């Protein structure tokens, strides 16, 4: 386990994530479902990688592999050169649903990772308050999740994922349940948080615009069994505004990503009436 001091020594730190021909099968009621096959991905330390692909292509499964919550049946996965395990402190995780404990205050929810490690209440509360301040939620520290809006809940979840300052941050469609306007604000803030303190980020999304605004590269995945079909570099200067897609080069990247998506999953993206495959 790396010490916190050595992690924070290099401000542009982060650990590389390396997946080599990963395969995963689930067995459900006797039948085996192949979720991932031959998935390879290289996310350099401190980079922002966006995973995009059709529904059910195994994007979330892949994040669970990187978080060590699941082991690959084939291939190998490494974070900073070693395989991740459940509860790996090198990895912070944000989900589609905020997954806050409803009976705890926002502050107690954000302090949870530290509390589980046996850090004193005083210290974990102080650090949770700092983490909340970073995402603009200090005023809501004593409120319960039920008293927060959806966007505020996701901010709290982000603060919880970042409280231990993990070198790798995994985000599984964290903004998909938010309205469009809140989502744009959020994308901007996520970019700001990342620019302030770069770390390796893997973000799963369905939104091409979000992928282009945030990613250094966009990994396009195929339908199940999922694999990375192609990585598209996003060589645009930062910080990138939300209205980025109006620009020519961004629009070109977007259309490249869209055509890749159409190729891997024709049935869902083809206009109605052209007949199913």
């Amino acid at each position, binding site marked *: 386990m790396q010490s916190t001091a050595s992690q924070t020594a290099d401000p542009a730190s982060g650990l590389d994530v390396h997946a080599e021909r990963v395969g995963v099968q689930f067995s459900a009621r006797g039948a085996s479902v192949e979720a991932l096959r031959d998935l390879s991905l290289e996310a350099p330390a401190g980079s922002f990688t966006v995973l995009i692909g059709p529904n059910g292509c195994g994007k979330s499964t892949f994040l669970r592999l990187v978080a060590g919550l699941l082991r690959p049946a084939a291939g190998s996965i490494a974070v900073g050169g070693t395989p991740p395990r*459940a509860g790996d402190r090198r990895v912070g995780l944000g989900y589609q649903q905020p997954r806050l*404990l409803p*009976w705890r205050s926002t502050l107690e929810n954000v302090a*949870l990772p530290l509390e*589980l*490690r046996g850090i004193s209440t005083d210290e974990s509360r102080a650090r949770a308050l700092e983490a909340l301040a970073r995402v603009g939620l200090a005023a809501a520290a004593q409120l*319960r999740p*039920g008293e927060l809006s959806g966007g505020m809940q996701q901010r709290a979840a982000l603060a919880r994922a970042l409280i231990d300052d993990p070198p790798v941050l995994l985000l599984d469609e964290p903004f998909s349940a938010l309205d469009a306007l809140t989502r744009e604000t959020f994308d901007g803030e996520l970019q700001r948080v990342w620019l302030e303190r770069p770390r390796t980020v893997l973000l799963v999304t369905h939104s091409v615009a979000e992928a282009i605004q945030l990613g250094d590269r966009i990994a396009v995945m195929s339908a199940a069994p999922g694999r990375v079909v192609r990585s598209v570099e996003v060589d645009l200067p930062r910080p990138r505004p939300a209205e980025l897609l109006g620009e020519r080069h961004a629009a070109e990247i977007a259309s490249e990503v869209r055509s890749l998506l159409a190729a891997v999953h024709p049935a869902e993206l083809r206009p109605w009436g052209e007949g199913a495959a």
Partner: protein
Amino acid sequence: MTRIAAALVSLAAFVALWKLVTLVGGYPDYILPAPEVVAARAARAIGSGVLWQHTAATLLEVVLGFTLGAVTAVVAGIALAKSLLIERVLSPYIVAAQAVPILALAPLLDIWFGGGLLARVVICALIVFFPIAIATMVGIRSADPLLAEMLRSLGARPGQITARLEIPSALPVIFGGLRVGVTLAVIGAVVAEWAGASLGLGVLINIANQGLFDTALMFVALATLAVIGLVFYGLVLLVERRVLPQS
């Protein structure tokens, strides 16, 4: 305040109706004594100290039996929820024990546990056990698997997941079981006293009924049991409100 007022009005109406029935029916006292007859009998029983003697014995059984039953039920409920093996092995016995009338089991348990206070506490605990164990099991299982995965991703050990997720999620359901259990504890105490005791409100009912045809005293004992049930139910509600801030 309005709540207490409503309860008082309802009690007054009940007594008035009761009085009306005795007036219209003109029943002898050993079938249906009038409210004032029962009140006078209660005053005598309180004055002589007899009522308190029997009430104290029953209270002790209810408190000890409910505590023993509830604590073992919560522990068993957690074990049943966490282990499929334990559930498969034990649940048939638990259900069967519940299906056998406690009234039939009580004399046997009275012999096994030596016929003293312990026997009565065990009988009381047994009747309390079932609803609380089942509520705990159901409650623990209702914990959100997505929250469990979140905790696992943070490195929580199984014990930490139980303490921080499963028990808090189960609490509302467990309290539902405790509310049922606490009223059953009063029934359990009376049944246990019938199986063998020299003191207690169950004993007082028997004395009043069989020996003396003192129906008014029986009413006094029954009313006391009802009050005990209401008070303990209220106490559980009070604790529930303290423990569950969201309700």
